[in-house]
């Protein structure tokens, strides 16, 4: 069945089908439509979950944390200042390993105040331990809602599902809707063990951790994050069986024998692909690469897609003040030689001179490996 929906309505329709036990949000343009839509559905008796329209985004995410700790399926929606107001809780949600689903209508950050689209909000949160998926269309918002939910639950990590403010949130498109029964079967039940509600086996969540244990918590989070690339592939395969749509971590458009490739994300992809078509007609070999899964970043697939290009242009919809923009930096990461990333000192862990010697020793032996090394 097809329905004319904008991106916010597509999210609402997906949430109707997911029917999370708890949804909590605070009004912010351009995603107010999601909470309003869910309130209407609840008043018509078409959803069963608890809706908590709370007094701030800080509380909205806090509600989700409390609810998710109880094993409830939990969702929220926000944008711009709202996401920044939640910032303190982002690391807590990911650190407690809670699979909260957050819809984001990407919007510029104040000051000056501006309600329209750029990616400054979610890009500011790219290192908060949340999975991040960026949608081009309302159709992607709808389909990726279910994929995002399953990915979050399989990795025990929260996820941001981003769509462009106004451009996607407020534009009507025909959206193919899957039967409730099929969706129900696909998402299944969420039954985590040892939740906060288990009084027989009481659990302390949110420990006080000293330098002797903090690093291991963070390393485990990173492992879950990087492992979720594989999980993502497994989940989209399963989803394509009910929808027919494939949603790989990156979408290649005429990149395979392209001389020049442009890389970007979200709604700009539409006109980027049109432009590729126009240039191809003139015999110019160009292609477009869309990044859908931004966290974890699919380095291998991106390197593979770009390795033969003569030139690459990266279009970021945000600045990184005093540095290079974030998507550009990720693409550059695919083409580095003789450089090894290390992480040290998390949570106050000491680093020793011997460990620094070891770093130099490895360099002199040309001992590099894929991915980050930890100095613990």
């Amino acid at each position, binding site marked *: 069945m097809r329905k004319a929906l904008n991106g916010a309505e597509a999210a609402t329709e997906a949430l109707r089908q997911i029917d999370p*036990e*708890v949804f909590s949000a605070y009004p912010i343009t351009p995603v107010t439509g999601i909470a309003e839509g869910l309130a209407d559905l609840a008043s018509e008796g078409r959803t069963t979950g608890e809706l908590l329209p709370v007094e701030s985004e800080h*509380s909205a995410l806090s509600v989700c944390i409390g609810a998710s700790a109880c094993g*409830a399926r939990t969702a929220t929606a926000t944008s711009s200042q709202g996401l920044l107001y939640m910032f303190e809780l982002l690391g807590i949600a990911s650190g407690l390993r809670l699979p909260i689903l957050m819809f984001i209508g990407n919007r510029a950050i104040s000051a000056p105040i501006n309600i329209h689209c750029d990616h400054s909000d979610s890009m500011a949160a790219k290192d908060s331990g949340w999975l991040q998926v960026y949608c081009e269309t309302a159709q992607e918002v709808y389909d990726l809602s279910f994929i995002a939910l399953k990915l979050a639950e399989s990795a025990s990590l929260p996820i941001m599902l981003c769509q462009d403010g106004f451009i996607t949130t407020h534009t009507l498109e025909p959206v193919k809707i899957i039967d409730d029964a099929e969706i129900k079967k696909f998402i299944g039940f969420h039954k985590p063990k040892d939740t906060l*509600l288990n009084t027989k086996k009481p659990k*302390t969540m949110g420990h006080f951790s000293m330098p002797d244990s903090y690093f291991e918590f963070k390393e485990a989070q990173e492992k879950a994050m990087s492992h979720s690339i594989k999980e993502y592939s497994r989940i989209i395969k399963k989803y394509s069986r009910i929808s027919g749509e494939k949603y790989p971590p990156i979408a290649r458009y005429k990149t395979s024998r392209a001389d020049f490739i442009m890389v970007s994300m979200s709604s700009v992809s539409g006109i980027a692909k049109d432009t590729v078509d126009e240039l191809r007609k003139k015999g110019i070999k160009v292609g477009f690469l869309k990044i859908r899964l931004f966290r974890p970043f699919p380095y291998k697939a991106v390197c593979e897609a770009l390795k033969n290009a003569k030139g690459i242009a990266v279009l970021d919809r945000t600045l990184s003040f005093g540095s290079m923009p974030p998507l550009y930096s990720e693409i550059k990461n695919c083409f580095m030689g003789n450089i090894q990333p290390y992480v040290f000192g998390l949570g106050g862990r000491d680093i020793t001179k011997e460990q620094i010697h070891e770093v130099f020793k490895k360099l002199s032996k040309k001992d590099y490996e894929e991915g980050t090394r930890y100095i613990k």
Partner: protein
Amino acid sequence: MRLNSDVKTCLGCVEPIITRIIIEASELPVIVSLATGCLEVSSTKYPGTSWNVPVIHSAFGNSAATISGVEAAYNALRKKGEAKENLNFLVIAGDGGTYDIGLQALSGAMERMHKFVYVCLDNAGYMNTGGQRSSSTPYAGITSTTPEGKPTFRKDLIKIAAAHNIPYIAQASIFDIEDLKRKAKKAFSAQGPALINVLAPCPRYWRFEPQNMRKINELSASTCFWPLFEIENGRTKINYLPEQKMPVETFLSMQGRFKGITKSQIQALQEKIDNEWEELKKISSA
């Protein structure tokens, strides 16, 4: 015990004692939301825990919002038959997490009428970070950020809670442990939000010897600095009428944090206490 004896607070700290009295008063199993603070850091050090009930610590200013989420999840799961047990929900926060950074979240949770008990362990400052002033620090109290004494009076948390028209609000202290127990039981049986503000004298930063804890609590009540009363469904009731109301100076002089307080400051504090006490007696139904 729901909170065991392995809590690493300072010598003479009353917070674990108050918490035990309250939490043991619940006939039902309890889920606890802790705000960042002295009790939280001293009871949850990884990999251990001092708690034999489920506990969640999220952040400093969101413990009331966290419990809102817990209660909402419980209600949703109960509707589906996935949660069967009857439970109580409890927040424990300090005055920093209540009067200051957590006030908005607390106000929101009270206005939404979640069924939970909120306990403020009020030690009148940020003792976990070294004794800075909070909006609960009394007038003329010396803290590390008010070295010459606090220039303003404390915020009235009970009146703020009362303005939300919640079913049960109480002020208590370990001066009368039976009264505290009774209040905890009432709070747990309230059909909606309940708040108990409990005095938690801090030997370290109020600067008194731990053996004077009993005396400090007694004087807080008999001077009416910390009157014991409750507001049940809008009806105010004083729970302790001192036979002889003591001058506030007797309470202040036992604490190093009021060292150097001037006569006029004492007078100002005395007047404030007298006025509030008269006001309380006027609205009290018993």
